């Protein structure tokens, strides 16, 4: 019967559509990340690395850069910027640091996640070096100064005169142990 055959074909197409849309839901994750990377929308993506050209310092402008630290609810560390506010000229290299202390009796590993506000400014803030590039281990009771070096792109638009950079520390000790455990297992296997 032709109606049955038509129905079969149509249903196959609709099921395919359903599967594709399920996939699209997951595809939104990378699409979102790429979109944010291009536009700097979520204020997360800042430029990193050395300056591409020798920097021309613009002495006529100063930009207020404020550092804040945010406590994740499960993170017991003490974590604060060494100096809360800097006034920098665009193009001027500036070094600062955050002070972290692990008051617990356990060795822990942390990861800092940066966020820039306003998000439009994210693409003009370049980090030459930052503690947030790496995982930060701290032994029980230890304290460390975690350095970062940054500059502001001289091409920063006129209306941006104040930038806030916030860091949130997350406890990744468990994940780190898992990674190491699996590494050890692999090593053992290879020696056998």
């Amino acid at each position, binding site marked *: 019967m032709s*109606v049955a055959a*038509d*129905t079969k074909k*149509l*249903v196959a197409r*609709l*099921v395919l*559509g*359903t*599967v594709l*849309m*399920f*996939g*699209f*839901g*997951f595809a*939104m*994750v990378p699409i*979102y*990340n790429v979109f*944010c990377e291009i*536009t700097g*929308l*979520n*204020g*997360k993506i800042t430029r990193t690395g050395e300056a591409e050209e020798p920097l021309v310092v613009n002495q006529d402008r100063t930009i207020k850069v404020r550092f804040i630290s945010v406590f*994740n609810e499960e993170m017991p560390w003490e974590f604060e910027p060494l100096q809360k506010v800097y006034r920098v000229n665009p193009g001027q290299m500036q070094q600062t640091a955050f002070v972290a202390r692990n008051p617990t009796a356990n060795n822990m590993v942390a*990861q800092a*996640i940066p966020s820039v*506000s306003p*998000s*439009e400014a994210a693409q003009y803030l370049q980090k030459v070096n930052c503690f947030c590039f790496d995982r930060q281990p701290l032994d029980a009771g230890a304290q460390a100064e975690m350095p970062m070096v940054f500059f502001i792109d001289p091409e920063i638009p006129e209306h941006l005169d104040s930038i806030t950079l916030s860091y*949130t520390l*997350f*406890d*990744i000790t468990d*994940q780190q142990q898992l990674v190491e455990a699996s590494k050890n297992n692999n090593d053992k296997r290879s020696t056998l």
Partner: protein
Amino acid sequence: MSAADITAEHHDEHHDHGPAKGFTRWLYTTNHKDIGSMYLWFSLAMFLVGGCMALVIRAELFQPGLQLVEPGFFNQMTTMHGLIMVFGAVMPAFVGLANWMVPMMIGAPDMALPRMNNWSFWILPFAFGMLLLTLFMDGGAPNFGWTFYAPLSTTYAPPSVTFFIFAVHMMGISSIMGAINIVATILNMRAPGMTLMKMPLFVWTWLITAYLLIAVMPVLAGVVTMMLMDIHFGTSFFDAAGGGDPVLFQHVFWFFGHPEVYIMILPAFGIVSAIIPTFARKQLFGYASMVYATASIAFLSFIVWAHHMFTVGMPLAGELFFMFATMLIAVPTGVKVFNWIATMWRGSMTFETPMLFAIAFVILFTIGGLSGLMLAIAPADFQYHDTYFVVAHFHYVLVPGAIFSIMAAVYYWLPKWTGHQLNESAGKFHFWMSFIGVNITFFPMHFIGLAGMPRRIPDYALQFADFNAIATVGAFIFGFSQLIFVWNVIQNIRSGKKAEARCWEGAEGLEWEVPSPAPYHTFTTPPKFEGAK
């Protein structure tokens, strides 16, 4: 349409296999009318359960301070009320109406995939059984709001969230199967002569709704799957600590969520477009523009989702785009409202119960639409966001919008289902109690919302006390007046004056050509459809 042909056909029909007897009739049935009835009863049960939860919420909010329930339980009530009303009451009611009416409106003997139809219904009681059982679990039911934003629904969720996720998966599978069935029925099983542009509008709006369902229910399934993986399998889709982003959750959710709100209103447009011409005794004004308006609303629904999240910190360009795209929806919606009014214009109108509900729909839905336009203004939305103004807005489009249209549809087609004429005085009593109750409940919420009362809180500042007390009184009037509806429907099934095949004088369409009550099997040979006059 020649009525003689069809009645002749029905005389020829042998009513040899009627419904089976006993409970297995309902368990094994593949008959679209049985399944439609089960959907409608299920939806009524969920409507009453969700309504009781709403009354718990309103009772607690009658006075400031904490009176009746713990704040944690209050949050479970707001969450469950939303989930049950959206997925358990409104959506299954529309699917039930589609099951009953679409085959009869297009002259098909049944749905295209009858066995799958049975399956899509019988998943639902299990899905909602599981969702309701979370109320008795350790840590309580989901308490993160029906929008289940991460990380509230992941990191901070009660353990029952996993059952919630599986329930959402199951109801999603049910809706997708229902939608596939409806598309296949409409596209492949129309009577000869019924071209797409001659289909009744209820069929058109359901065709478009079914496509919306197929497009976005899988995205909902995807987002709850991501939550499941974040909670149990160590991924970090929405966890910033692992490189994810909680704002991503809102984008994926509302990519589903905005088309979802049109899924809950497009079939209502179809119902009202069937009822108003009947009782105005005029053809629907602007049929083609109605079809195109429905299609444009469906298209626009995919590109406006971020207006639910203006306050997350979007760039200006994004706010402008989503603001203007949202306002654009007012154009096709305005076309529809205009057409309904133009249909009534100089018609010889009578005001039977279904018509009263349909007219109330047009007026009150428009109020909800206008407050929606206010919310669409991005700079103003920062003030309204997450206040009772939003609550007032979406209840105006969902209660006197979607729910009133469902009630209008039930009253309109009930004589066709039961074979008994409507008890008009009980119907009108129900209508006026509901109409008054709904407005007393939700209109004051506009004011307390503009004054700044946040939504989803069990306690509030003293200056909101009077309007909250009024809203609670209205909620109880509305809630208890639904018992009149239940009584009226049951009475109508059991007794009443015999209804004719065309029990409303001005009714047009194939469903009115078959006798009332509609026989168990209709249109086993396709009727010849010659189009509307």
